[in-house]
């Protein structure tokens, strides 16, 4: 295809078409290819996506090698592969139990799959999301992302400040094309074209015999915003992990909690968290309400949970009332208090051989099934002396059911989670609880190393089932134990995670940017007007969008219709004038037929 400008030669058609007609048929194919390539190039120019670099590492030494590596890393192909790896790499974490999610499950899994454990541990499959290889994938991806965003942003800013690209030589090769003749002067047509483009809010520019218009910059902007938002979110997550603190606390009704480290049952924090970061506040659990499905196949399924608390901010704040529910945490000075679990605390009193009540407490027991069958331990550490006056400690293993099935119905398991028929079973020990040994101890479990069993008259471990209000007498006049009643407890998680606001802002920006990027088309429109051989003006319009545009032809038709009110279609020229144009006449319908 000739690349010289044909405007000087008197042709009736657009320059490209004139070339074609005079070229050999074999050249036609190459001309078509060239034009196709031109269209494709023009289309890729509508995106700031990095070009594919298919050359190998250049010979230019270490620096060249580094540059090549960088180009590879920031190429679309590598970004794509890294993304694919990220999705595949996340999968094992859903199939193998994760120690940061459920330690217990990990332990169980290890027991049943012993042969696999060494390999899995080597591959960090129990900690996928903090493993070296997973981190490597996302860090590389984010390096690639930054390496991609920075040049794209510059390029985009340059495009915004520069002028729209010049008009391609052959508009008829563009995905959408229209052409007609008019009696209006070319200058007038171009001036009208500018008005039309301006009216449709295209950025437009006049060069020579043509006007270029471009629209939809928001697509590119949205895309950049989306990718930047991803980085913002990653930073927010990282900050959250480093500064977070999170702890659990079990609170029996009527008692309270104040936010200092020593009060927590368990506490975790990020590596940059400092003790002073805990905001001072306190709360008391006033009431806990739970309701359960009473009938039907889902009998026992919980329906509502609510913890009523009184809390005060700071050391001396005024008390306020609030309700904490499963989906409604309480926000106090940036710390969130979540309701995590609940259960029962049997109230037990112990009377020593001299008839003195030396212990009376609501002792929380932990649920082991969904009907709140619970287990726990009662530890009487101080104040007990046996019949001979010897100082000793008492311990009881406690088994509690809120709804007892009735005597003789197999093992004592709860039938329903509500307090319909509470029964407490205790087995009794005496000796040393080992709490003074300095070793941390589980409060829900009895350490029987230095404890002896109380024996019943058959020489078995002494145990008894109690209804509320009932007492049991320990063997040999060692005292009595009374099941006074039942209290409730609720457990809370108190967490602080700075960076949540930033993560949310990033997420919102990501969704908006994405919508802009996917719903807005970036497209160009060209209008060329020049005088033809017969003295009329030939108007050509063409449109180009990213390959997926469906509405582009419609939009072009609209613009063409608007322009043709200023540059009306001229009546059919003389037949020999058409002949002079070297072309066989072709109707648009015919052209459609060729396409299809």
């Amino acid at each position, binding site marked *: 295809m000739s690349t010289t400008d044909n405007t000087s030669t008197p042709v009736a058609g657009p320059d490209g078409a004139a070339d074609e007609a005079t070229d050999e048929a074999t050249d036609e194919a190459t001309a078509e290819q060239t034009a196709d390539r031109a269209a494709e190039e023009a289309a890729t120019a509508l995106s700031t996506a990095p070009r594919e670099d298919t050359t190998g590492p250049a010979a230019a030494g270490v620096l060249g090698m580094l540059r090549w590596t960088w180009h590879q890393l920031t190429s679309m192909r590598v970004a794509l592969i890294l993304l694919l790896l990220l999705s595949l790499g996340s999968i094992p974490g859903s199939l193998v139990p994760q120690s940061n999610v459920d330690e217990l499950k990990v332990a169980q899994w290890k027991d049943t799959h012993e042969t696999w454990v060494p390999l899995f541990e080597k591959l960090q499959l129990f900690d996928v*999301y903090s493993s070296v290889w997973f981190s490597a994938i996302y860090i590389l991806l984010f390096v690639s992302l930054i390496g991609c965003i920075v040049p794209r942003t510059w390029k985009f800013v340059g495009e915004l400040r520069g002028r729209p690209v010049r008009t391609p030589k052959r508009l008829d090769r563009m995905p959408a094309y229209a*052409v007609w003749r008019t009696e209006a002067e070319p200058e007038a047509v171009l001036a009208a074209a500018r008005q039309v483009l301006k009216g449709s809010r295209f950025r437009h520019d006049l060069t020579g015999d043509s006007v270029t218009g471009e629209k939809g910059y928001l697509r590119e902007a949205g895309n950049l915003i989306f990718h930047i938002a991803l980085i913002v979110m990653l930073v927010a997550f990282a900050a959250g992990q480093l500064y977070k603190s999170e702890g659990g606390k079990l609170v029996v009704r009527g008692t309270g909690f104040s936010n200092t480290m020593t009060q927590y049952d368990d506490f975790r924090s990020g590596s940059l968290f400092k003790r002073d970061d805990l905001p001072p506040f306190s709360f008391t659990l006033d009431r806990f309400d739970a309701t359960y499905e009473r009938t039907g196949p889902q009998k026992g399924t919980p329906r509502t949970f609510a913890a009523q608390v009184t809390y005060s901010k700071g050391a001396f704040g005024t008390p306020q009332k609030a309700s904490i529910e499963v989906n409604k945490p309480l926000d106090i000075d940036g710390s969130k208090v979540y309701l995590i679990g609940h259960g029962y605390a049997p109230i037990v009193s112990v009377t020593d051989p001299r008839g003195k009540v030396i212990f009376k407490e609501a002792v929380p027991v932990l649920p082991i099934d969904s009907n709140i069958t619970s287990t726990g331990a009662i530890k009487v550490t101080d104040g007990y002396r046996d019949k001979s006056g010897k100082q000793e400690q008492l311990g009881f293993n406690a088994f509690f059911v809120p709804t007892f099935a009735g005597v003789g119905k197999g093992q004592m398991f709860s039938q329903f989670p509500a307090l319909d028929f509470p029964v407490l079973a205790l087995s009794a020990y005496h000796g040393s609880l080992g709490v003074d040994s300095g070793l941390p101890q589980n409060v829900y479990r009895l350490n029987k190393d230095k404890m002896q069993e109380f024996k019943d008259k058959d020489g078995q471990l002494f145990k008894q089932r109690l209804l509320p209000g009932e007492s049991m007498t320990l063997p040999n006049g060692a005292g009595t134990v009374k099941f006074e009643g039942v209290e409730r407890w609720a457990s809370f998680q108190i967490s602080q995670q700075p960076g949540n606001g930033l993560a*949310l802002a990033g997420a919102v920006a990501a969704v908006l940017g994405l919508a802009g990027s*996917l719903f807005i088309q970036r497209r160009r429109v060209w209008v060329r007007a020049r005088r033809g051989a017969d003295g009329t003006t030939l108007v050509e319009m063409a449109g180009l969008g990213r390959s997926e545009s469906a509405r582009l032809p419609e939009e072009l038709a609209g613009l063409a219709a608007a322009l043709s009110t200023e540059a009306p279609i001229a009546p059919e020229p003389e037949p020999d004038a*058409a002949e002079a144009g070297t072309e066989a006449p072709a109707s*648009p319908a015919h052209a459609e037929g060729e396409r299809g």
Partner: protein
Amino acid sequence: MTPLAVAANENLAHISNVLVYSSMAVYTLAFFAHIAEWVFGSRSKVGRTAAALTGAAAAAAPAVQVRGKGGTTAVLDRPQVVTRAGAGSRDLPDGPGAAGGTEKGDLYGRIAVSLTALGFLVEAGGVVTRAMSVQRAPWGNMYEFSITFSTVAVGAYLVLLAAKKNVRWMGLILVTTVLLDLGVATTWLYTDSDQLVPALHSYWLWIHVSTAIICGAVFYIGAAGTLLYLFRDSYESKLEQGGQPGRFATSVLERLPSSASLDKFAYRINAAVFPLWTFTIIAGAIWAGDAWGRYWGWDPKEVWSFVTWVAYACYLHARATAGWKGRKAAYLALFAFACWIWNYYGVNILLNGKHSYAGV
């Protein structure tokens, strides 16, 4: 709840079940009507694709691009726009649709679409009465999720039809999968209507779950397009290389839209819901933050939502990357949809995490 209300609710739940079963009956009729459409349509011998491809060599030098001189142009009062396929893709016409241009086929096709619309109304009624019977959003368990899912998928298809999009070709596939979905829902997933566990008591249920269902249904439609694109594309390339596809394949694929149209259709559908899917995940994270005290905890459901999301992002990237366009991108799209389906059935049933609730 008073006993009276309980009775009323049981009544509604019963009506809901009757409606769901009735919709299955109607969809079954639609299924047979579609079959009839395809059978009658197969009697037309169009052979347009082959003609277009083999004729392409002869017409290699058409290239008469100047339109508007003489001929019909003079009588036009507005300029005509000529379109060309994008560079590098085959420039083929869309097939005539299942009816193959036959009158009888078309009649059955219309009957099938009408029945599908009726089935949709009945099924939607089933979903609404279910919601009324429990007085909450009807998305508390997998049964409810499934019936809503197929209702939305059919609804999306009908909306596309009403918007005059060329989608009738997917009628048969859609009705078949809807029947499968409802069959699985009523036989294996059925759960009596009931209240929610406290963790689901939240307005985020409305937001997060409804968008998740919409995304799944629309992704499904995109995946159907992608799958047919793969078949149609290999059919076209076989023809292009002078091969002779089997008679059945020819008869069916011939009537589908061109591979370029199917590909574009699938892309537009997937790209349109991707932002919504992103939003769904974010909404889920916010809800998890309120309900469980952490917004992201790599629970199996969360993992697979993330995998699905990244896989769709992969697909969108692939479309913009030389060397990955076309079939490779299509495989990624199918992988992404497979992840979505697995996240729904597999994760709910096989892997238990925090997202397991009453009655699966």
